[in-house]
């Protein structure tokens, strides 16, 4: 298997459709994308390298280097263009010998590293437009590495997740229908290239025959204008992007985006208020909440459009709550929630989420497979299933607060805090405590115009949950720290609160 199969099938099945770029001219057809991928492969094969790397915003170089690397049989390594010069140089050296396709600003950072051949994106794109194509004899070994994705690395040295061709191709075959898109469909990709969702979006759009439109760097105004100009029908966003898009539309009196048929979101917890507003503002749009990890080749669970509507219109509290769930596993995925001893737990009980399926890679470079003997992968995400099999996420297992031997999920405390009208955002973390091992700390962003006290919020939590869950420490901040995918940086808060010293009591 090789991800090039996907582009080859697209070129054979609907080669004259525009697959990448604008509908107002200068877009590339699938046939042209295939030819450019072949030219990129010839370029890489001639460069005497082991890996292909990319330091760029979302641009046409992303799909063309991704497929070109697969054609050449070289792992593709997209690096985060936001890294500092030192971090970038360190990773580039690790990936060497490599050709690094890069944007203008990154090039000076990549100068003079042994085995690293930087090439400017625009030069590269111009070169492959006229370069001869490599023979179409790519390796079909399913175990070849397709992509190495370095994790954001908020702690310790960055590590590279390994995605082999068999994982990515299985993911696409298992979740996307070939040529399933109508000819007018176009997807707007605004997640960064070094994120699994950005890569998965390219593979699934090509296989479905859905034109790819790229937004180099996210900005709500640019997103909305591009969606209108390009007649965007599909989009994937992270929660913070959706919140900003809605704010922008309201501020600028844009009542709807009528061409938008489907929007998927993921990568972090979606505030209920944001998704409810989005459902009301874009009534024709099908919303999909997708849950997945880099190690699982993207999505493993989805909350579909019908689930969204049923939850929005229901008076049953249990059904309404499903708007905050990530839905049910894909047909090609098995999923269970297990306790500390690895035994599956009953619906409603909390534990660690485990998944199994052809798309599940569960591997880091140089560290071997994290799958158990039966092929199950522990996600390190905590959660529980409801009576009908809807999955609710509760944050990372590492973030669970162990207070006096009792496991407390930050999610349950945050959910209760967010129900309080004076709380805009909330994060719960464990703090060092001599008496309890860990104590509960909470960081709260107040809603505009309100000024709740710590005591008031502590009482609120104690009223709704057991008293052990009431935060011993509550601090107020103007904002919470998130990464550029909208994920709460809990470790940053934990470190900040730990500096307050040991919590007595």
């Amino acid at each position: 298997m090789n991800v090039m199969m996907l582009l080859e099938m697209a070129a054979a099945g609907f080669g004259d459709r525009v697959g990448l770029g604008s509908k107002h001219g200068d877009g590339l057809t699938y046939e042209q994308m295939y030819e450019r991928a072949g030219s990129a492969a010839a370029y890489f094969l001639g460069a005497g390298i082991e890996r292909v790397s990319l330091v760029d915003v979302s641009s046409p170089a992303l799909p063309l280097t991704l497929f070109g690397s697969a054609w050449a049989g070289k792992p593709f390594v997209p690096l985060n263009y936001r890294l500092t010069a030192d971090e970038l140089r360190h990773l580039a050296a690790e990936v060497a010998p490599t050709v690094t396709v890069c944007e203008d600003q990154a090039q000076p950072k990549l100068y003079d590293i042994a085995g690293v051949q930087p090439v400017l994106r625009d030069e590269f794109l111009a070169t492959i437009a006229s370069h001869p194509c490599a023979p179409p004899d790519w390796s079909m070994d399913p175990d070849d590495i397709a992509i190495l994705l370095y994790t954001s690395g908020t702690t310790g040295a960055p590590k590279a997740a390994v995605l082999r061709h068999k994982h990515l191709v299985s993911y696409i075959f298992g979740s996307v229908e070939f040529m399933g898109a109508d000819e007018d469909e176009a997807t707007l990709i605004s997640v960064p290239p070094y994120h699994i969702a950005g890569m998965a979006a390219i593979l699934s759009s090509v296989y479905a025959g859905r034109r790819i439109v790229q937004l180099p760097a996210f900005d709500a105004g640019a997103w909305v204008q591009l969606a209108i100009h390009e007649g965007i029908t599909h989009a994937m966003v992270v929660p913070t992007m959706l919140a900003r898009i809605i704010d922008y539309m309201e501020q600028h009196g844009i009542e709807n985006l009528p061409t938008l048929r489907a929007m998927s979101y993921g990568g972090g917890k979606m505030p209920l208020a944001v998704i409810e507003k989005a459902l009301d503002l874009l009534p024709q749009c099908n919303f999909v909440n997708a849950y997945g990890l880099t190690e699982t080749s993207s999505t493993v669970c989805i909350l579909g459009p019908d689930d969204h509507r049923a939850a929005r219109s229901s008076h049953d509290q249990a059904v309404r709550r499903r708007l905050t769930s990530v839905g049910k596993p894909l047909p090609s995925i098995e999923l269970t929630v297990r306790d500390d001893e690895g035994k599956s737990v009953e619906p409603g009980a909390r534990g660690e989420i485990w998944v199994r399926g052809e798309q599940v890679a569960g591997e880091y470079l140089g560290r071997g497979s994290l799958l158990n003997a039966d092929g199950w992968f522990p996600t390190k995400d905590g959660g529980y299933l409801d009576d009908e099999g809807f999955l609710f996420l509760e944050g990372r297992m590492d973030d669970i607060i162990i207070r006096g031997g009792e496991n407390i999920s930050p999610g349950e405390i945050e959910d209760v805090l967010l129900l309080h009208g004076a709380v805009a955002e909330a994060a719960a973390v464990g703090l060092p405590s001599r008496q309890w091992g860990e104590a509960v700390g909470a960081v709260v962003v107040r809603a505009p115009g309100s000024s709740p006290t710590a005591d008031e919020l502590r009482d609120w939590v104690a009223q709704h949950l057991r008293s052990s869950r009431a935060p011993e420490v509550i601090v107020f901040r103007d904002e919470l720290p998130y990464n550029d995918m909208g994920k709460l940086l809990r470790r940053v808060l934990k470190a900040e609160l730990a500096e307050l010293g040991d919590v007595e009591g």
Partner: protein
Amino acid sequence: MPALKAGSRLKSTVCTTEVIIVKAPAGEVEVTCGGAPMALGTETITERGEASADAKGGTALGKRYVNADETLEILCTKAGEGSLGADGALLALKEAKPLPASD
């Protein structure tokens, strides 16, 4: 032929059809195209045979084909003139049940 598993590739010996196994039943199964057993994807076909008259319906690119109890599912990655079969019966075109786009 070794037992099939998901991800195995096969090619026709009578036409241009190539397929990939999406789901395979336990135990042995003989997959045919145009009535003739298919070769492994890695083999080179030097001489093509003729498709039998009752298996000339053709395969369509990107379509999925299943046996009667749906224990075998095959995806067509290159189209051709032969029809797919398994253990003596023709496979049926599987109706698409697309999932909503998630990325």
